[in-house]
């Protein structure tokens, strides 16, 4: 947890030497607390104070990055329990599990399918982030072969899952030079696992079902000089997973409890467990198997929960085609706030009727908000009609305004004399009926 200016002042030399460029140590301390200067500006601060200040400046949840061949998956650095308090920063990595008890060809085929998966959501290409190779055979050779089979089809970061150090060593050797996640260390194998992770520069997951047990392990492993740790709270069932993850997040953020200040990971065997893992704090999530109809909603949910609540998603302003419209079909006007766009686009699409949707740049605000803020007026709508050459694409010059801004229709007729201005319904849900009856 960040120290206050006064707390920092107590750690400074308190000589007011001014060499840092500030008149007093207190003034410098205040600037430090506000993160506007660097501690290195003070030439006389003691090593002990330096260490204490560095510790307090570290994020409450360590950022851990898994890396391979140009790919990187990061988790950690989170600062809140509820997304509305600020935002969730690092989207959890989504990994697909493969086991080493299957022929290499099958593993490669499965990985190829998952690797090729791309779903487009609001203009973003969603893909999975990596693979988790699990040792089912307990044989180092089989494990290394399975890792090789994955690498034949994908270069994405890996999680290597075995609690047997010999097996883990074989897996780590197969991807030397990368930063995989070794899963992992428990109370019986932790020394060997920590040595292996250190030797191969891997991140290490700590397995435990109690906070005390996990904390003991992370402290012991940290004392060996390993810092990139991940916690795997092996609780049974949704409720214990939720409780453990909530307690870990709370202790890290509210109490600055260092032994639990690491990202967590989860294995998702059901729709419920993957949904909960995304909403409730997992940093790396392993899907028990891959299917596009599962990966798509999982990646969309992750995108939604990790949207910054202060920055609504906007869609690109432009003329959108819905249900393959022809030149004689109507032009509906709306704003570029994503939820507004989706509500309208969804209703029009659902109606089965073709239409052109003119998405006006209203700085990402909904119809009423934008209108009240002066960001959705006749001038902007007319500009959108011209910018996107709407008149060239449609033969029938007819524009439908959202019912909430019926008041704009007179002005808009002035701006666009060639156009017939119609007023549509206030709510998107009424659009299909309006289109069937009034257009």
């Amino acid at each position: 947890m960040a120290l206050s200016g006064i707390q920092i002042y107590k750690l400074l030399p308190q000589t007011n030497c001014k060499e840092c460029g500030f008149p007093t140590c207190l003034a410098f301390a205040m600037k430090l607390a506000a993160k506007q200067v660097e501690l290195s500006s003070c030439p006389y601060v003691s090593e002990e104070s330096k260490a204490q200040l560095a510790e307090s400046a570290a994020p409450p949840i360590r950022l851990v990055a898994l890396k391979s061949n140009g790919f990187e998956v990061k988790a950690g650095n989170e600062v809140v329990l509820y997304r509305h308090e600020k935002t969730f920063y690092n989207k959890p990595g989504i990994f697909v599990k493969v086991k080493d008890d299957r022929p290499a060809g099958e593993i490669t085929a499965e990985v190829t399918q998952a690797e090729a998966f791309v779903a487009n959501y609001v203009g973003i290409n969603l893909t999975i982030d990596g693979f988790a190779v699990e040792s089912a055979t307990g044989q180092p050779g089989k494990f290394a072969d399975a890792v090789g089979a994955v690498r034949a089809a994908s270069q994405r970061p890996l999680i290597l899952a075995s609690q047997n150090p010999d097996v883990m060593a074989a897996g780590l050797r197969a991807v030397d030079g990368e930063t995989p996640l070794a899963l992992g260390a428990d109370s019986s194998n932790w020394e060997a696992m920590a040595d292996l992770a250190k030797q191969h520069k891997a991140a290490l997951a700590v397995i435990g079902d109690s906070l005390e047990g996990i904390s003991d392990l992370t402290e012991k492993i940290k004392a060996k000089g390993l810092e990139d740790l991940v916690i795997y709270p092996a609780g049974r069932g949704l409720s214990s997973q939720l409780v453990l993850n909530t307690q870990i997040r709370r202790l890290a953020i509210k109490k600055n409890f260092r032994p639990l200040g690491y990202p967590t990971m989860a294995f998702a065997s059901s729709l419920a467990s993957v949904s909960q893992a995304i909403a409730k704090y997992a940093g790396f999530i392993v899907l028990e198997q891959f299917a596009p109809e599962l990966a798509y909603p999982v990646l969309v949910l992750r995108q939604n929960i990790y949207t910054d609540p202060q920055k609504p998603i906007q869609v690109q302003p432009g003329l959108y085609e819905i249900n393959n419209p022809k030149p004689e079909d109507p032009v509906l006007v709306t704003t570029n706030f994503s939820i507004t766009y989706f509500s309208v686009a969804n209703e029009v699409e659902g109606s089965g009727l073709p239409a052109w949707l003119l998405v006006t740049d209203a700085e990402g605000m909904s119809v009423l908000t934008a209108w009240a803020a002066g960001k959705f007026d006749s001038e902007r709508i007319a500009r959108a009609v011209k910018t996107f050459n709407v008149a060239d694409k449609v033969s029938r010059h007819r524009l439908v305004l959202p019912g909430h801004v019926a008041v704009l229709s007179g002005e808009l007729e002035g701006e666009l004399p060639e156009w017939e201005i119609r007023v549509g319904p206030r709510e998107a849900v009424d659009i299909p009926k309006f289109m069937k009856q009034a257009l």
Partner: protein
Amino acid sequence: MPIEIPVEKWPGAVRTVTLGALKEDGGTRSRTATIGGEKAMPYLHFESDMPNRPAIAIEIRDRYPDDWSPLLQETWKEVMDDPAKWAKAAEDAGADCIVMYLSLTDREGKPNTPEAAVATVKSVLSAMGLPLMVFGPGQAETDNALLVPVAEATKGERLVLGLCEDKNYRTIVATAMANGHLVSARTPMDVNLAKQLNILITDMGLPPDRILMDPTTGALGYGIEYGYSAMERLRLAALQGDSMTQFPMIVNPGFETWKTKESKVGEGVPASWGDWLQRAINWETMTTITLLESGADIVVLRHPESVKQVKDAIVELMAVHQTA
């Protein structure tokens, strides 16, 4: 290493609300559904017991829903022609309560009538033993014209009537008060709007243990994050002691997800969307679970397979974790 677990001590609690009335309490239900009563954020059993598990409602219509996804039509089949049979099938599918929407018109396109609405509600009540919610078609005049006679004809049943919205709540609240029913109050994903409507309704004198609030939500991919955070904020406000947010929350993931393209459309969609039926069920189930995590007390669903999966998840969420 002994660790002191931080425990949030909240001054407030969500009100406990019971839907439906048994025979001895003036109704005809064989089961009631009691929800609410939370004194902590969802499923944090180490902070407080969660006295009631969330309830699953299944949505039905008073006539065949032509505009529903073919996947739902193929699932429920011919019972969709008869709301009483549909309600019974929903009870058999594991619902805790039933939500029936009254339509604006009948199948021939003629306007719905109070007589028809009353007859339908009565047939549904006699076909199954679960608590019932009856929602109008969403047009103020028609809603009032249909719901008042329904409320009068079912006095004492503790139905939930809806939807109360800022533009139309007085008539529905008045008839709920006079006839021993409950109401559902819907506002669009905003803490203050929700509070405001709850104040207006309680100001009319309806006891607060007869109010549900519907904060509205978006489907997965269509604004779920707004609903999710509005619900978390409403629940936090309730626990902090704001009495006008201390109502159980009802949300409609079935309605929201089954109108998305992902669920509604099977052809001409990207191959990366995968199997249509499985995708649609995943969409409904994942939306629902996410809303349960943010405090939903009643979730209204459409597909029986989603009901099954959500039911299993609720059992797991309600299991008390033994902390060391």
